[in-house]
């Protein structure tokens, strides 16, 4: 069984001046092994010191990049054509190797990182690379918590943290960088305090702002690598686009309920987020963690995978998630993997890119700024919690319909309310009297408005929506009521 191997000009003079050679083997690895066996001078140009293919060596089987097949395990048959194609890179004399060369570790640092340093894959050289590296963490929430703690502990030299939020009681179930005493404090201050306590050698930059098209390029360009720990599509596309434009690797993670995803997007070597998802889903289709819930441990698993990929990338070790989407299902306790391909038609990183600067991400994701409603223009179909309380106190007979889901109803309820989840409202209108005054409510007001609209169209003329839902009721009328 023989496979034809095509060599680039650069390698021919080390292979008896041949542009093609016939070699045996059943896989890419075996054929390349036979190649360097026959022409030992080729070995150092194709493989690094660890025996891995150098990252600027590209191997194609019949015009298909083996990175998208089974890499070196890709099977080959007699008559296949295997091509070795260089990618050519170079540039100005500033790079991570040179930077790491100027870095020293103190005896305290050597002791602190000794369990890293004694591994040959890290060693002093690798630990210096970590110290010379800078990583930007977008968000210090569920994913940002394990990311910030582990990356600081691992000795990454400089961490940038971006967040504008304050710690909420409902964050503590998963955002382990924050403590109960931090509720109400700025997340950045809280995170900064924990990281400093863990590793004072880490340099910290904090950005108390939302990442936006106006500031993203300026912030991101100061870092070697970016990790997106946010939970919305605007930021996800913004981070992706800025990273592609600035040639930065972007370590992606996302979480929902019991499932998570992770990958590394790096347009230089593989696909970007837009190759995977060219367009965002319509607003409201994919619920956020605040709406759909999330297992508190899940961001721990996904955040730690992101941190691992970041450290591997800096060390230049192992096989990265570039071109692979890792899927995790906590209920099944299973990991799966999908191959991701670079989309040649990608408007950002494809062959003919049409996006050459950042865009308006709110508009792109179909999100319009929240209109501010003044009392004079308040919706006539709304009733405020205070108005409802006053009417109930006067003993008025009102039917209260709760359009939330049963598991939400278990957390808190308004007195004497009837539970009809939004999805069942249309089919259960016969349970209600169109002549009666009805007040509909949900958690925050959104589902309630949909139910009111539907009922009005069905002839219920005296139906109103509780403004701000049961959540605003709990804040304004009944502080003893649990919120979620």
């Amino acid at each position, binding site marked *: 069984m023989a496979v034809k191997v095509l060599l*680039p*000009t*650069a*390698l*021919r*003079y*080390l292979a*008896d*001046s*041949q*542009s093609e050679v016939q070699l045996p083997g059943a896989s890419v690895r075996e054929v390349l092994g036979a190649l360097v066996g026959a022409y030992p*001078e080729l070995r*150092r*140009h194709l493989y690094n010191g660890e025996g891995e293919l150098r990252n*600027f060596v*590209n191997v*194609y089987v019949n015009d298909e*990049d083996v990175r998208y097949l089974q890499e070196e395990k890709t099977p080959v048959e007699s008559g296949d054509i295997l*091509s070795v*194609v*260089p*990618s*050519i*890179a*170079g*540039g*100005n*004399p*500033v*790079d991570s*190797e*040179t930077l790491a060369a100027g870095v020293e570790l103190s005896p305290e640092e050597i002791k602190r990182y000794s369990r890293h340093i004694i591994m040959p894959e890290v060693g002093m050289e690798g630990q210096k690379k970590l110290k010379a590296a800078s990583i930007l963490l977008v968000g210090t929430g569920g994913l940002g918590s394990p990311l910030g703690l582990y990356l600081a502990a691992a000795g990454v030299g400089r961490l940038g943290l971006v967040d504008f939020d304050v710690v909420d009681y409902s964050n503590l179930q998963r955002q382990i960088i924050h403590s109960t005493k931090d509720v109400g404090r700025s997340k950045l201050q809280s995170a900064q305090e924990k990281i400093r306590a863990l590793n004072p050698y880490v340099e910290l930059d904090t950005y108390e702002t939302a990442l936006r098209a106006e500031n993203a*390029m300026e912030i991101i*360009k100061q870092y070697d690598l970016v990790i997106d720990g946010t939970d919305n599509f605007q930021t996800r596309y913004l981070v992706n686009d800025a990273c*592609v*434009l*600035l*040639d*930065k690797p972007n370590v992606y993670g996302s979480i929902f309920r019991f499932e998570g995803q992770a990958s590394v997007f790096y*347009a*230089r070597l593989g696909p970007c987020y837009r190759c995977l998802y060219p367009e965002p889903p319509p607003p409201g289709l994919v619920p956020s963690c605040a709406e759909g819930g999330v297992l508190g441990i899940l961001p721990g698993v996904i955040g730690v995978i992101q941190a691992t990929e970041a450290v591997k990338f800096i060390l230049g070790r192992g096989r990265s998630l570039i071109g692979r989407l890792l899927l995790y299902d906590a209920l099944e306790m299973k990991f799966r993997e999908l191959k991701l391909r670079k989309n040649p038609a990608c408007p950002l990183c494809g062959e003919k*890119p049409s996006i*050459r600067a950042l865009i308006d991400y709110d508009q792109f994701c179909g999100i319009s700024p929240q209109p501010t409603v003044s009392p004079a223009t308040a919706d006539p179909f709304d009733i405020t919690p205070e108005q409802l309380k006053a009417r109930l106190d006067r003993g008025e007979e009102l039917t209260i319909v709760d359009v939330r889901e049963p598991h939400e109803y278990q957390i808190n309820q308004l007195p004497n309310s009837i539970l009809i989840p939004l999805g069942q409202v249309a089919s259960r209108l016969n349970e209600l009297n169109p002549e009666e005054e009805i007040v509909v409510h949900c958690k925050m007001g959104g589902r309630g408005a949909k139910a009111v609209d539907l009922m009005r169209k069905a002839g219920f003329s005296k139906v109103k929506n509780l403004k701000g839902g049961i959540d605003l009721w709990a804040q304004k009328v009944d502080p003893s009521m649990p919120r979620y």
Partner: protein
Amino acid sequence: MSGFGRMTGKTIKLRAQHLDSIAKHGEATYPYECCGILFGRLINGEKVLEELYPVENAKKQVAQQKRFLIRPEQLKEGERNAQEKRLEVLGFYHSHPEAEARPSAFDLEHAWPFYSYIIVSVKGRQAGELTSWRMADDRARFDPEQIISLD
């Protein structure tokens, strides 16, 4: 193809118009890096440049200032193009905006043997020194390659 085995010369022969085109390309893309492929022939083991094949730098915007990248697909297309003209890929050229015409550690890490690496320094949009380099076979360093003008 017989010239390959005997090739010992560390020279590249070219014309003044080639140097001029590389300088102009570097000035046009300043402050970003330009890059391209060198097509030519091996005559008695000596590299003779015949044609330049400019390539769009696959690195984008700000990053280009520091790095250049010719993707494998771009090189495959370049090689096909060279073959049609019965020429060989002899090497590559790129610019160093606001830096000297010396290869960097990054250049060495990513270099291939045999190929010529022509570097032009561009400062304040003015092309300056132009040098050519070839990596030693043990990957330890770049050796300067003598540029011989045919004009």
